[in-house]
């Protein structure tokens, strides 16, 4: 059975918390979050696909990927990794960008901090998302949060029901 996804919002502090357990050992979960060939297999919610162009999982290294939409649209994002402690935690700064990785400063950025914790049945991941501004937090939530899903609420509902 699938585990529950816990989501807490703390808008005054411009943070969102996402927690999820997995029935798999920590090493596997860590790999799934930090290796591009694995990330590409689950990072995008269907029917979108995540496609990594380059990924250098080291402190200061860059992850350049795009979300590939069902009608051929591509939304690029660029993350810069930091504070990597293998099998425990890593962070990255994420911004929307063009296909060369040039970031768009008009768009809100977000900061990801991911913690990996072993549990008796597998492992748990705790994600903390921080935003520079409240408007940024709301904008990202409004945009479907990820990779530039510029579709409106109703489109997303439709998409999610499909």
């Amino acid at each position, binding site marked *: 059975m699938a585990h529950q996804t816990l*989501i807490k919002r703390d808008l005054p502090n411009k943070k969102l918390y996402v927690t999820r357990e*997995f029935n798999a050992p920590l090493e596997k979960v860590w790999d799934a979050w930090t290796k591009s060939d694995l990330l590409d297999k*689950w*990072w995008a919610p269907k029917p979108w696909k995540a496609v990594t162009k380059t990924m250098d999982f080291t402190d200061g290294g860059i992850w350049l990927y795009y979300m590939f939409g069902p009608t051929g649209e591509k939304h690029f994002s660029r993350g810069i990794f930091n504070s990597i402690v293998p099998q425990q935690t890593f962070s990255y700064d994420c911004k929307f960008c063009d296909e060369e990785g040039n970031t768009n400063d008009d768009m809100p950025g977000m900061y990801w901090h991911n913690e990996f914790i072993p549990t008796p049945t597998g492992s748990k991941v705790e994600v903390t998302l921080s935003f520079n501004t409240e408007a940024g937090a709301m*904008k990202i*939530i409004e945009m*479907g949060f*990820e990779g530039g899903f510029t579709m409106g609420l109703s489109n997303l509902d439709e998409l999610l029901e499909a």
Partner: protein
Amino acid sequence: MRRDIFQAIADPTRRAILVLLAVQAMTPNALAEHFNTSRQAVSKHIKILTECEAVNQQQTGREIYYHFNPKKMKEIDQWMDSFRKLWEDKFDQLDDLLKNL
């Protein structure tokens, strides 16, 4: 400019106004007394809240009262549900992937 409920709550003063109005309907003057900012600034926030449909105005005698619109606030929960669904779908995909690793 398109207004929506997310713009309504993206500002701390507007959130404070909503909290006050959730308790009872108030006039713009009564609202302004709760804030250190200028009356114009509060009026501007009320205007945005009205455009976002987070509040409704009602004329009572010579006064205009602002009422909280809980129906509109539900849109935030609906959005959070979509957001949750998005993550659940991703994590279900990850579960499948982990099974085969």
